[in-house]
């Protein structure tokens, strides 16, 4: 198996110059998953934003959490949405809800065969996938069935 789920050629995620998601992307490079939590009301918040949607504080912390969760939904993609994925189909995209917080969900791929079954509710664990040779380097968070 390749060291990455897809070969190079897909768009490279880069931290926004002024975007709220920068600590998330920087964390993946360091093998850490960071999610926003409001310092004042302690609400988890996702996606990243500059303000807490609950109490309107601008003091949002980035909390390192365990990359563990359950498959909330999934799809098996058969028709490549970009030419660079033409030889990658079929592949499985999963939406994972983290154990640590309700309504905090991340999109990734389910590692393994693209024809494998995925089940809503199945436990999964994160696998950091580093694209060190990319310019600029970046990292993704993939998922494997949890023990």
């Amino acid at each position, binding site marked *: 198996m390749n060291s990455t*789920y*897809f070969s*190079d*050629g*897909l*768009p*490279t*995620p*880069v*931290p*926004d*110059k002024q*975007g709220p*998601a920068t600590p998330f*992307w920087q964390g993946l490079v360091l093998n850490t998953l960071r999610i926003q939590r409001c310092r004042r009301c302690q609400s988890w918040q*996702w*996606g*990243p934003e500059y303000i807490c*949607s609950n109490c309107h504080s601008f003091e949002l912390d980035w909390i390192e959490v365990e990359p563990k969760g359950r498959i*909330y*939904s*999934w*799809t*098996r*993609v*058969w*028709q490549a*949405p*970009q030419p*660079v*994925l033409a030889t*990658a189909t*079929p*592949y499985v*995209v999963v*939406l994972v809800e983290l154990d640590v917080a*309700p*309504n*905090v*969900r*991340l*999109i*990734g*791929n389910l590692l393994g065969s693209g024809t494998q079954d995925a089940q*809503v509710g199945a436990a999964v664990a994160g696998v950091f996938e580093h694209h060190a040779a*990319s310019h600029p380097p*970046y990292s*993704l968070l993939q998922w494997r069935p949890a023990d």
Partner: protein
Amino acid sequence: MDARRTLRHRAAIVGVGETAYYKRGQSPDLEFVLALKAILAACADAGVSPHDIDGFSSYADDRNDAVRLATALGVKELRFASMQWGGGGGGCAGAIANATAAIASGQAECVVVFRALSQGQVRYGQGGAALGYSTQAAPEITGEMAFPVPYGAISPAQRFALKARRFMHDHGVHQEALRAISLAAYAHAQKNPRAIMYGKPLDTAKYDSSRWIAEPFHLFDSCMENDGAAAVVLVAAERAREFAQAPAYLLAAAAGSDHRHAAPSHSAPDYATANYKSVSRRLFAMGGVSPADVNVVQAYENFTGGVAMALMEHGLFAPEEINSVLTVENLTAPFGCLPLNTSGGHLAECYMHGMNLVIEAARQIRGQSCNQVPVVDVALMISGPMVAPVSSLLLGSEATR
């Protein structure tokens, strides 16, 4: 509800018009020319001079600027120009609402609502140009789309498949329910000479053997990509009977989004919905009718899964009834209990981002559909499931006045 603060019976659609519909890239006309032709057709249908249009309303960042249209058409006095925020087709009924609000509040007298698309010029829904592939081998991506794109969830099919899959899981929805939506649309298109899929029927075996795009969406669960334009003309309800056609009165229009529906990375608290729970409540309250009063439905198909969600969220059936209600027999005019997308809709007539569905709703009210339902006093049109904001529209016949 404060009786003054309503759009009910404040305006009516008195003209409808469309260009010929084309497969993507096959229009001989540029998009702006398509827009002009549709508007002229709608004016001719109403018996209105294009010089007397005084407002334009559109949505989804339509590229055909109202001022250029007004200049080209020789509009005598432009009084109103409005763009409903939001991508996709979620704003279609919202643009009707904005036009009606302008008329009700005395800002305009004769407003055109339109959509023009030349996907041969700029293609929707395809990551390519938007992702920057035209200029870089592997472009960079930031913001909300950085969460799905590196994982191959790039075009709407993959992203909406996640939502549809969860919806099907939550409610035990069978693939056959999605199939019925597609088969009914194709059946209707066989009687509609305007339809792209006129003369190209679909049956169960062809659907079942069609390729997957992204599970649970087969090819035939997905909208087409088309070129063309469509437009309607609205005037104040009290003037509506002065025009050439039977008026389709606006009973209600509502737009909006449920709480944090668009939270990035698919993190909406109420995820597996098409985003109509609050919109449909306001829609029926304004219209003074109930879902049981609806005689015919035009529901925006980006993908069939979104249609199933949208119908349920408009109260047309209970969650546990999805599989029993969504059958070809029930969804097919004239005698099905829930006639759906009676022009062929986006799957088989044309993907005109909802405007062809508005026209079909008005034709059903007039009694002019290719698949006419015997008695239509209330027609429901639903815009853009699973996006934000979405919107919905109720049209009524003379009997509702």
